């Protein structure tokens, strides 16, 4: 199934929650969705018979300078089709529903997105830092991040 067809199905089912479909070469096509019902959209994508996206390839946090984002790359092992969903979040209110109950692999990915970008996944059972130390301050992969001068008395810059 092409991404255009998947987009039509989603648009029919969820209406305004699905915002746009972009397919400009040489980019991969992607769907932009609203954040409020992303968990329902994902559950639908996984359980619908002819979509069957049972494999979350990767979940990435993004920093688009003026806003944040979450990108879901999905794959269906049965039907061998791929789908990319993008969700934009404002920097003041980076909340998004979790999808860890739909794909268990999202657990660590979401923790990483929180660690690196400060995106808060509502409903996640254990949203703590994963790569940085637990007492780290700031979100390193944000574009405006400044390397700290000191950590526990150790000088950090070269």
């Amino acid at each position, binding site marked *: 199934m092409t991404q255009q067809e998947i987009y039509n199905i989603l648009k029919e089912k969820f209406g305004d929650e699905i915002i746009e479909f972009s397919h400009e070469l040489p980019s991969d096509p992607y769907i932009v969705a609203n954040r409020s019902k992303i968990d329902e959209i994902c559950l639908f994508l996984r359980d619908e018979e002819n979509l069957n996206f049972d494999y979350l390839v990767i979940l990435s946090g993004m920093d688009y300078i003026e806003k944040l984002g979450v990108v879901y790359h999905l794959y269906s092992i049965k039907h061998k089709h791929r789908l990319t969903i993008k969700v934009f979040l404002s920097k003041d209110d980076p909340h998004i529903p979790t999808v860890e109950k739909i794909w268990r692999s999202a657990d660590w990915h979401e923790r990483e997105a929180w660690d690196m970008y400060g995106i808060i996944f509502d409903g996640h059972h254990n949203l703590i830092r994963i790569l940085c130390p637990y007492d780290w301050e700031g979100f390193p992969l944000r574009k405006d991040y400044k390397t*700290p001068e000191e*950590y*526990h008395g150790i000088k950090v810059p*070269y």
Partner: protein
Amino acid sequence: MGLLDRLDNPYNFGGIILGTLEDLLNWGRSKSDWYLHFGLACCAIEFMAANASHFDFMRFGTIPRASPRQADFMIVSGTVTLKMAERIVRLYEQMADPKYVLSMGSCANCGGPYWEHGYHVLKGVDRIIPVDVYIPGCPPRPEAFLEGMILLQSKINKQEIFKKRKRLEEEMKNMNQ
């Protein structure tokens, strides 16, 4: 170098070795070093290669120890991150004196390729513990690593044991006065 060379010396009538006790102790220490292997990153794989059949690291008389309390020297092979730094200090402090540190690879020496933007990388393990031998390379070849080991052995061979204690005692005395 060492005691064995003197065996070849004809003036010592073969089999008789003249030397100081310090020489003997250093010879023993340098030829049976037990190491705490601190495998961190890519360098650890080269270290494994150095340990395996082609390079045979154990011919130096070294034996890997998993516990710092039984180790003579520590091999820090790879990138040290800030999260790891405190553990390294702790393990170093658990080692019994005299202890040595071999810093393997650019990352452990100075941060390596991560020196500029590595917000979470310690720029050189010598910021937290004293280092005896630096081995450059990213990663160092096993040959380079073996040379580092030879350097460490020659350092141990030249170390003073008794004089040092005397000197330190005098220094302490001076400090107290």
